Each structure stands twice: as structure tokens, then as C-alpha cells.
């Protein structure tokens, strides 16, 4: 079952600086929505506001029928709002497979004290199955026993993605997930995302600078500039918009 992410009128201030200004984004479940904009536009701050990493001064965050504002970030994740990070947050001392399994285990155990110490055989089987599937889909099953801290940036990005899609989130926020990937990895990456959305019905909101990838996978795009949403529309409309070109894309066109 797909759920929508409905973020309304979010404002985040740091002292006198308004990082996100009255931003409203509606990302439909079962689709991939893009959030683009120049560096410093407030994209990561917007994600942080959605996931509870910072405290917005105003606005609401709704996942499906559930209001999330005011809840801790772990609660929001437990209710299905997952994310990846611009600066990768991996469990560096664990192996690739342990990273993915631990992500799923963290989600399933949540705040159950016993769940954090012990997993039933059935739960372990679920975790192992989901992890194996995700590693396979991301094309990194062969790296399973390697320590994550020893991997290249591109491989680490894929581990982070595998961990995110292995975990049964209802909606994913991906923050510049393709940076560090080469061309073939980026192509494969796009396919993993579209397949995952098709198969599970989850929604994805993606921050990305790679406009080719964005044009290939996103149905709708929101453009953020100086903390304000300056444009929203279908991908084709957005990439052809003069406003978006002036603020972000420049004169070159996306093939």
C-alpha cells in the first residue's frame, strides 16, 4: 500500500537566517518525486525538517494519515519515513551484509528492549531474506563480507541504498544518492529505484544534481531556491521552465 508524504508550509530558521521558507511539497506514494535546486538552497534542511533532525518554526509533516511533526526522528522512521544522507552515514566497522541487516534489525526492534537484544528465528529469516534481496538488487551481493569502511565512495552509496530499500519503510527521502557513482552505476541505480517503487509501491522524494537521472526517474519535480519552492510541475515542464533555468539549470538543456 502506498502512502503520500504531505509537507506543508515548513519554515526553518537558524538565528536570523531563514533556511527553508514556507515550503510545501506533496510527494505521491508509488512515484518518485524530485527536489532540485542549487547548493545552499535548503534541500537537506528540508529533509531534516521532515525527519525530525531539526525543529521547524512552522509547518506540518504528514505521512499517509499520520501527523509526524513533534515526534522524534526515530519515531518518524519507525512509522515508515526512511532516509539516506548527503554525507553518508554508514556503520563503517560492520561488513556490507551486517550494515544492511542491522538497518532492518534496527527498524524491526525499534524501541522494544528485548527486540534489541534478541531476534526470533522467524524475524532473523525475514531480515536475512530482505538483506539478500536488497544486496542482489543493488548489485553488491559479492561485497557482502567486506568491511564498509574499506569500500569506494560509489560502493558505499550502494550499501546505503541497499540498507534503505531492505528496510520496510513506507516512504524514502534520498539525499544526493548518486554522487560518487560512475555512469554505469548511476544507470543501474536509477533502475533499482524505479523497480523498487514498482514492486513495493513506496514513494520516494529524491534530492539530486544529476538532471539526466532526475529526468529519467522522476514524475514530478519541486525546485527550491533560497529556501523557497519556486516551481513545481511535471519533470518535462520543470526542465523546460525559464524560472528553473534562471535559478538552477542555466541555458543548457537536458537530453
Amino acid at each position: 500500500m502506498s502512502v503520500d508524504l504531505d509537507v506543508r508550509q515548513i519554515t526553518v530558521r537558524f538565528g536570523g537566517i531563514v533556511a527553508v521558507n514556507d515550503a510545501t511539497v506533496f510527494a505521491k506514494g508509488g512515484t518518485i518525486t524530485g527536489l532540485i535546486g542549487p547548493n545552499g538552497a535548503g534541500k537537506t534542511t528540508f529533509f531534516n525538517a521532515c525527519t525530525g533532525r531539526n525543529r521547524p518554526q512552522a509547518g506540518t509533516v504528514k505521512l499517509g494519515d499520520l501527523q509526524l511533526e513533534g515526534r522524534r526522528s526515530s519515531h518518524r522512521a519507525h512509522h515508515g519515513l526512511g532516509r539516506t544522507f548527503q554525507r553518508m552515514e554508514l556503520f563503517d566497522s560492520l561488513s556490507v551484509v551486517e550494515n544492511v541487516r542491522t538497518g532492518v534489525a534496527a527498524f524491526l526492534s525499534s524501541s522494544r528492549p528485548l527486540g534489541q537484544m534478541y531476534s526470533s528465528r522467524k524475524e532473523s529469516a525475514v531480515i536475512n531474506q530482505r538483506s539478500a534481496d536488497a544486496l542482489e538488487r543493488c548489485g553488491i551481493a559479492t561485497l557482502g563480507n567486506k568491511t564498509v569502511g574499506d569500500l569506494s565512495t560509489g560502493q558505499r552509496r550502494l550499501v546505503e541504498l541497499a540498507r534503505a530499500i531492505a528496510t520496510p519503510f513506507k516512504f524514502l527521502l534520498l539525499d544526493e544518492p548518486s554522487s560518487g557513482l560512475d555512469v554505469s552505476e548511476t544507470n543501474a541505480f536509477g533502475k533499482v529505484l524505479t523497480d523498487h517503487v514498482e514492486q513495493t509501491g513506496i514513494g520516494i522524494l529524491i534530492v539530486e544534481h544529476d538532471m539526466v537521472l532526475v529526468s529519467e526517474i522522476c514524475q514530478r519535480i519541486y525546485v527550491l531556491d533560497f529556501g523557497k519552492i519556486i516551481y513545481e510541475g511535471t519533470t518535462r515542464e520543470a526542465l523546460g521552465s525559464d524560472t528553473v533555468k534562471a535559478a538552477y539549470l542555466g541555458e543548457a538543456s537536458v537530453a
Partner: protein
Amino acid sequence: MSEFLTFLPSGISAGSIYTLIALGLVLTYKTSGVFNFSHGALAATSAYMFYEFWVKQGWSWPMAFLASVLIVGVGGGLIMERLAALLSSAPTVMVVVATVGVLVFLQSLMTAIYGPANIFMQPYLSREPLFNLGVFGVTREDLTIVLFSLGSAVALYFFFERTRLGKATTAVVDDPNLLSLQKTNPSAVRRLSWVVGSCFAAISGVFLAPTLGVSVNTLILLVIAAYGAAAVGRFESLPLTVAGAMGIGIMVSYLPSQVTKLSSSVLVQNLPGNTPFMVLFVVFLVVPARYLTERGVRNARRLTPIRTYSPNVTRIGFAALLVVLAFIPMLTPETDISQYASTLGYFIVFASLGMLVWMSGQISLCQMSFAAIGAATAGHMLQHHVPFLVALLISGLVAIPAGALVSIPAIRLAGIYVAIATFGFAIVMQQIGYLTPIMFGQDQRIEVPRPHILGMDATTGRGYYYLCLFVAVLAAVVVLIVRGSRLGSLLRAMSDSPVALDAHGANTNVMRIVVFCIASFMAGVGGVMIAGVPGNASGALTGPFNITVSLVMVAVLGFAGRRPISSPLIAAVLFQLVKIYPPFNTEWFIKYQGVLFGLAAVTVAIWPALEMKSRLARLGRFGSDRDAGGPVIGRMAEHPVVPVRVRAAAVKEQPVLAGAGAGADR
């Protein structure tokens, strides 16, 4: 009320000293992100310098004062600034290891040179009252301290609030690169802060010397008062820090007169002296976590993962180790066996510390306090003829509530504040807890006799060694089980990236408490085994459960590695065993052991930032990087696509468009 007013001037005088120490602490933390656990040791070193110049060398006191402040304040400040710069991108754990290393280094050096006893000296400022304030005669000494401290506080406040350089000083932690673009040199700003902060520590040490005597242990403990004041100021606000210091100073002066009316017990009498710790703990419990964020952690790099071995290699390694340990009594003279048994006892405590520090990323500076609780509990139970194994188990269990108590700040706060809380707990345990009848009592000692157990005579050296080995193996098994369990994976994940764990929905509160409870249980058991070696446990400053021992253990574990079993064993051997073998059994080594431990801990903490490998490669042209890759120009020639990649990477930060440069890479 009139009684309170009587104590007000002395409270302000004490508060002024706390102000000076706390300001130095806050100043350096605010500007470098490095919380200086050696701040008290700097104060103590300055006091020893003053004693050396004034009393032993016969200099005039102003010259001795100036020389001490120059050497420790300016010289020490410059050294500390370099250290802080090298630690600027180190994980919190390594920052604590480094500053505790400096503390251990200075403390051991001063003790080695001047001995452990408190050195008393005459006051150098007149104590004749200049004028009376009520019944309180204000002396030149009081007036100097108060005016200097408050004057410094006011000057600092205006510096930070009113000057461009002051504002830049605070910004240096958050973004040194951005600051350097504003024509302000971050290094110069940071250097100035460290010199001023260290001068405050040095001056407070010299101010305190005539009152408290010159004692490294006393002065280090006194710094906890400054921690309390700094906590009131949320380790950031100078006016609140001054208010906190004054409040604590007044309470410490006034409350003893009130508790005397309540009880004559030494325990109760000691309570007011620990007001700062209580203030510290209350602040950690009630101040919203968002006001106690760690500074500088945003730039921290991760620890390099340790190399892992295959399960077979690990199994063979453990089996071989166990065989060696089992044969030791047959290869070792009876006189040395106790030292080996003691080493195994310390191994248990080191393993518990390793579980906290390396497995879960939480820092404990009170591990020997848990051990003391275990040892004291066992002593009481064995006096009542409880069977040894039952007493051992209960001793570990009794230590658990202490672990749970200490973990409360760990639930709310992170990193450095947990270390500060555990340091405070260790001090209050030593000053109050150890004196209670349920621990060591007024005698500071309790018998912990070796047992006869399951038909084995553990009262002999060999018998007790095997008992220690048995318990140590059990402890190792516990560590390995925890590490291999879901809890272990979650703890290691929490250590690597609490943010990612949080983003996957895990509530880390429970696991933080659980790991503290397991570690305190193990430390409690380890304490019993350590106490069984001499047959008694002592809570005295010279005993094994002294706060200093906890600090030295952190330093030793810091350079012994991050493996769950072998590193604690290496740490225990270095800490307890090597001193009975040449060349380490010399008087010099035993005297300067702590100095070497401290130096080693600092070196390990700053090693990654020293980049010795690449320095050697550049200097000697024999580094492995150069051999592997050849000269930079040559490497570029081997990869003609490099310029294209660089351009593509630069574009990637901005939109990557087909036909706009990225096309070459795609």
C-alpha cells in the same frame, strides 16, 4: 539570614577561583571543541612550578608567579593548542583519550618528581584583614583573587560579545575554513584562546596553592567544581558560568555549617564539598539536550575499521592463548603468580571498559568505581560467610544500579558529556561513596579473603590464578556473546553512526543503559578478583580503586587497540604485568610508568592527523605510497582521463546535464 551573610564573602572568594577555572575550561571548549580533562593538571603543574621557584629556588613570589604562568599558561597553552588542532577532526573518544593522556602524563610526572604527599606552603599574599565586611575580614589575598577573576570574566564577556575577533573565536570551531575567508586566521584565534585558558588554569593553581597545598590529586579533583559551573553555563555562556561558579562557591562555603547541625557523620560532612557534582548531574538531567550539543563533532572523521580475521584464525588464536594462560603457573615462580592473577582481574575491567568505549562509543572514566562497588560488596558478603561464587555474582549485580545511574546522562546526551558525568561520578564515589559503611567505611579498607571453592584451594597463588583465569574466560565469553548478538551489532552501529541508527527507527536509550549495566557488572566482578589478590580492598587514594586508576586505564586502553579481547589483555599486561620483568622492573620505569602511558595515549590519539606515512614518503622517498603509485605526474600520465574526471566531479555539485560536460563521463 545573618548566618548566610557571614559566609557570603568566603563563598564569593571560593566562587572566584571556580570562576577562573571554569572560564578557562569553557573558553577552550568554546573555541576548539576539545574538552580539556587535563585543565586541573595544568593548574597543579603551575602550582608545583611556583613551589619550585618560590620555595626551593628562593625567587621572589612575583617572579615565581610570572615564571609559572609563562611556562604553564603560555608554553602549555601553545602546546595544548597544537594538540587541539591535531584533534580537531578526531572522534570524541580519541579526544578524551588524548586529554586524559595529558592529565595522566602531568599527574604522573609531578608525582614522580615531587612525591604524592601534599606540600604545604606559606601564603605569599597577606592574610591580614584590609577591612571588615560584617564579621568577615577581607584580606589582600581574597581581594586579589576576586578582583582578578571577576575582572577577567568581564573582559572576556566584552571580548566575545563586542569585538570582531571575539565573535570569530567562537566561529572557529564550527567552520574554520569559512572563517579563514574573512581575513581572520583561525589558528591565531585558537592559539590565543588556549593561551588565555591555560593562563587562567595556571593562575588558579598558584592562587590555590597556599590554601589547599600543592597536590596534583587535590587540584585535579577541585576542577570538578569548575565542571559544575561550566555545566550551569551549558559549556558556552560566560555570564551563566560565572553565576554558576559563584553559586557553587557560596553553597560550598555555607552548607558545611548547616550540615554540622544535622549530623556529625563524616559522610554527611563531606556532602557540601560535592555540591558541584550534584549541580553537574542535575544540569545533565534537566537541561534540554539541544542546549548541550557537542562542539566540533560535525568535522569528526570516523575511526578506521580494525582488520578482521576469519573465524578459524580467531578460534585457533583464542585456543592457543588459553593454553598459554593455563600453563603460566607451571612456568612462573610462585612469587610472580599473584601479579598474573591481578593482571587477569584487570583484564576483566579493561574488557568491560572496551565494551563501552570501542563497542558502543561511550566513554567511561569511572570503571574502577564500579570495580570498587563489586569489591566492597564481596568483602561484606564474605564476612557473612556467603559462598564465594554467590558473593561474586551478587557483587556484579550490585554494581549494575551504579551503571544504570551513570547511563542516565548517556541517554539524553552524547559523547563528551557522558565522559564528564562519569568523571564526576568517580570523584563523588571516592569522596563520599567509599567512606560509607556499605563500602569501605572510615577505615577505607575491607577484607576480601581468597576462597576454597569447589574442592579447589584458591587461597594459594596458583589456585587463585586459576580462579581468576576461569572468571576472565567467562568475562571474555560474555563480551564475545554480546558482540555477536543483535545488541552487539546495534551497539557497534551506534558507535559508528548514531544518526543512521536513529534514521532506521531504533531507540538507542535502552541499549545505552543495557551496555552500561553489563559493563558495570563485569567491572564489579573484576574488582572482586583484583581485591582477592592482596586479600583486601582499599578505597584510599593509594588503593587500586582511585579515580586516577580509571583515568590511566582509559589512556592505556586507548593505545592497546580496539579489539574486544586481545586489546584488553594487552592493556592489562602493560598496566599490571610488564613492571615485574626487565627492563620495566626498574625503579625509574615504575616511577615514570604513568608518564609513558600518558604520552603513548596522546600519540595514538593524534597519530592519524600526523600523517606520518605521507610525511616519510615525502621526506625519505621510501614511503609505500610512492613505491606503489610512482610520482604524481607519472600517475597522471597513466590515467589520461583524470582531467575529464575532475571537471565532471566539479560539475556534479551543480546540475549535471547531458551535453554540458557530464556527457563526457556518462
